[in-house]
Each structure stands twice: as C-alpha cells, then as structure tokens.
C-alpha cells in the first residue's frame, strides 16, 4: 500500500510576503499548526484550485505534510524552514491584515 499523502495549501502574503497557510475556515493564517491538513490529494487539488485566483496571496501550492501532535508537520526541510523562519533571525510572527 502506498503511503498516504497529506497536503496543506500554502502561499506568500501579497502585502507582507510572509508565509501563509490555508486554514479549515478558508482564511490565510501565518502558523502551520493552524493550517488545514487535507488527507486526500484530489480534495487538496480542489482546494488549491479554489484559491488560485485569491488576490491577497502570491504563489499558492500544495506542501506535503504529516499529522503531528500540534497540527500539520512539514515533511521536507524546505517546508520546515518556511514554517520556522531563518535560523539566524527567528521569525517574528506577522500580524494578519484584515
């Protein structure tokens, strides 16, 4: 049996450029733990499709993640760094504009 792929929809915020994730409520949130973890790839693609034209974000794509104790957990190190911010200058959480 092939390993189940979980996905999260992610992008960069248009105004601030910071990393954002799509939450279960359909809003963009800065913390990966608040992201919606989508267990099936077809649904994930659909969610991606829905927000592709969202003008408040840039460069939407699907990132593979796994369920973790504190919500979605990035699999690839690039996504880990995107979630954490640069090692030398720890991420200052961005305030979400309304």
């Amino acid at each position, binding site marked *: 049996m092939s390993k189940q792929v979980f996905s999260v929809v992610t992008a*960069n915020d*248009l*105004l*601030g*450029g*910071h*990393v954002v994730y799509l939450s279960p409520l359909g809003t963009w949130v800065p913390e990966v733990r608040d992201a919606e973890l989508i267990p099936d790839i077809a649904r994930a693609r659909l969610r991606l499709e829905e927000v592709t034209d969202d*003008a408040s974000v*840039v*460069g939407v794509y699907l990132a593979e993640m796994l369920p973790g104790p504190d919500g979605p957990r990035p*699999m*690839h*190190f*690039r996504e880990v*760094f*995107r979630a954490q*911010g*640069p*090692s*030398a*200058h720890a*991420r*200052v959480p961005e305030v979400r504009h309304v």
Partner: protein
Amino acid sequence: MYEYDAFDDAFVRARVAQFRNQVERRLSGALTEEEFRPLRLMNGLYLQLHAYMLRVAIPYGTLTGRQMRQLAHIADQWDRGYGHFTTRQNIQFNWPKLKDVPDMLEALADVGMHAIQTSGNCVRNVTADHFAGAAADEIEDPRPWAELLRQWSTDHPEFQFLPRKFKIAITGSPRDRAVTRAHDIGLRMLNEDGAAGFEVSIGGGLGRTPMVGKVLRPFLPVADLLPYVEAILSTYNLLGRRDNKYKARIKIAVHEHGIEEIRRLVEARFSELRPLFGGGDQVRLAEIRTHFAPPVFESRSDDGFEAARRSDPVFRAWTDTNLSPHRQPGHAIVTVSLKAHGAVPGDVTSAQMRLLAGLAERYSHDDLRISHEQNVILPHVHKADLPALHAALLGAGLGTANVGLISDIIACPGMDYCALATARSIPVAQAIAQRFDALKLEHEIGPLKLKISGCINACGHHHVGHIGILGLDRAGVENYQITLGGDGTERTVLGERAGPGFSAEELLPALERLIAAYLEHREGPEETFLMAFRRLGAAPFKAALYPREARNAA
C-alpha cells in the same frame, strides 16, 4: 564620488513614481502577480522564502558616509534593522513590505542610489576592485570606467531584453580582486609600453555550468572600451540562445561557437561601432573622472602605529590580517570584517552602518567600499589613526582579525532566505567559523578562502574557493559537496569536486580532517593551503576527507 546630475536624478525619480503607481495597481488588484512580477523585478524587488527582498546596487562597491547612513535609516524604518551585503556589491533588505518599497526607493534616490537592473536579463550592477583608487599595485582607478559603463547600460534600449542576465567586473590592477574571469565580461587593466589597456575576457561564470572566462582581446586600448563592450553585447544579443534559459548565458555562446568565431563577429561589429562613438564617451568620461579625483592625503608621522603594534597584541593581530598596502606612504587600506565568529557573513546592523559611516568620514576621506567578499573597506586611512579606528571597531563587534582566514567565509543567503536554495549556507558558515575559532587554529592555518553556496547557482562563488562547499538536497536531506583548489585571482581555477557529499553533521569533522592533513603535509607556514594543494594534488586531501575509502583502497 560620483554624484547624480539632474538627468540621473530625474530618471531615477521618474522610475520611482512609475513603480509607486505599479504597486498601487497591484494592491488594488488591477495588476495580477503575473503582470506585476516583471515590473517589480526591474526594480530589484524579489519574493523570497519568507518575505520580499529588495536588492539595491552599490555601483563599483563605493559608498559615502551619507549613503551608508541612509541605508541604516532604510533598515530601521522599513526593514528589521539590518542589511546583507552580497557577493556582487549589492545590499539586500530582507523584510520589506510591498507597500513600503516605493518609499524605500525614494529614500535611495535621495542619496543617488537605486535598485534598477539588479534583476532581469539586462546588464547588472558593474562591480569593481574594492581597493580601487587606493591599492598600491593599481595602474589606474577603474571606477570612472565602471561609472561610464553604468550610465551607458542603464536603460539602454537595445540591452533591456538580453537572452539572459549580464555581469561585468572591472579592475584597474593586474592583480585581480574582482574575480573578473567569472563574469560575462571581465576587464583587467594592464600596462603595455606605458599605455593602459584592458585585457577583455568573456564567457566566465559560475553557476550550473561553471566556466573560466576566455580572453577575447589581450590588450584593448582603454579609450576603445565602450564601443568594444557594446560590440560584445550586440553580438551576444543576436547569438545568445533564447530557447533554453540554462543555455542562454554568453558562456554557452562562446562554448558553442568557439572564441575565434565570437572574436571575428565582435571585431567586425566593433569596426562598425567605433566611428559612431565620435568621442562623446571620452568627453563624458573626462567629466566623470573629476568626481573620482584622489583625496588630498596628509603627510604626518605614523610613529603611533608602530608603538601600538608593539604594545597591543590584539591590535597587532588585526593589522597583520586586515590591512593592505596603500599607494600613498603612511596610509593603509582597512578591511573591516563582517565575519565575527558566529555572525552571518555579510550582515550588518543599522548601528554598525552608522558607526562605519562616521568612521569613514573621520578617518577615510568619506569613502567606504563593499567587497564581493562581503566585508566593508575603509580605503584611505592614515596609519596614525589606526589604533583609534581599531578601538572604535572593536566596540561595535567589527574588530575581528580574520580577513583572508578560514572564518572570513563567503556565504550566500541559502535556504534561510533564498527561494532557489537547495540547502542552508548561513548556519554552515557560522558553525565552521566558531569551530576553528574554538580550536584557536585559524592564524596558524593562514590564508584560506572558504566559500559556500546554497545551490548550484553559485552566488557564494564556491567554485573559486580554495575550499568550496555546495549545499544540495539529496533525497530530502541537506547534503554538502566539497570542491578543492579553486582560485578566484587572475589565475582563476575552478575547484575540483572531492567526492561524495557530507551530511550537515559530517561536514565539520570532514573539514577538520582536511585542515589537519594540510597542516601535516605543508612544508611550512609560508606554504598556504592552495600552494600545498597545487604541489601535492588532491590525493592526500581526498584521503583525509574519505578515510574509510582510503583504507579500503590500501
């Protein structure tokens, strides 16, 4: 220093106004990202991993105190209080908000700076020897030529859509401190029978297909520079491949057509263009030159310098590594290390920028340089002022005595910032610097250039590091490949790959074994790592990096 005239100023301000309008239209939704992207890139605005990034050109690496202060102001006002100096004499601000960028560009225009042509397929910031106008070994200050090239290439209608980006580096000294052979055009000044000329090389470049530039003209009279460079650009514009981004640089055209054919085409085009220039460029050059008149140097005693060297070992160590010979007796070129052990190479805080601005005004004829090695240069310091200067630097964490040593690492931003990265480079640089500092070995190891890139684009120039490190993604894990024996001087040699890469954990011990092997095999402290490598070849170093393989083969 060159100051914008009314034309330059009006041009830059018009571009800011244009961009302000474009940002407004983007924010209102009138422009899509697809439409906006090329417009923002034309103004040096990238979208990186965690934020936008504004790349600002520092033409020929030269800044006044006022400009440096303005960079500090920009960092405080619209960023997070620091900037990052790159290997191409740019400064990058890592955290701007889109709506603020027009204001940042306006603030740059106020001090005669801009971010134009720091991206895109055009002629990029023309880089120069960071010791220009000061080095004892220099024939002529190359910066008037660099400024002439900057003016000529800025918004040049024919060269805004080249097949690919185009980088030019220039040095006024036969000693190449500008890595000219790793540029699309490299210009190295030579003296022949008392006349100055440029050795013109083309097709150099690191990146995914690293190549050493080939000499197109061994000696071009200086006055022919502009028509000749235009002839190269116009030949490349026609010949360069537009079908494949990875084959679009001039180095591929040189590789595919051969240097002889390119030379034939360039020379033919040159003979058409040269009469058209009609001397206007030389008039402009003469005008530009007046801005680069050498400072009026003082002649006073430098007794205090020797006395301080005798009495203060910390000062002495710093003068041993961070000073270079100045053309003017009694003076020195000071390299201020931005590589305090554990610091991010090339990062500078706004407070440090302000301090450096003040020190330049006080001790260095209001002149600062940014080197491609990510350090700051105070080019004209009287030796009598060095003890006071050193004390001021020490107090701000800028007094590290390590220029040219193993901890004076060039590192690109890597995956801490860069969207193209395949691995991190900054933490690797920090760990190496801290480790060799803890071992108290770096002064014993002596001159060694270690350079790190976070992907094959090679912004960290790893191919020309005596030791180069390239960060890759191997099946979802960061992996670091070592190259050995690279050289970025006028000899220009690309390093050779030592073997399989190392994980982040294995890398540091591997480097320690490599350095231990060098110390064991060298003939004495005067034989540098690179010299030892050339004498011995790669074998003993590979054996140190891969002891298990070496044992199995034995």
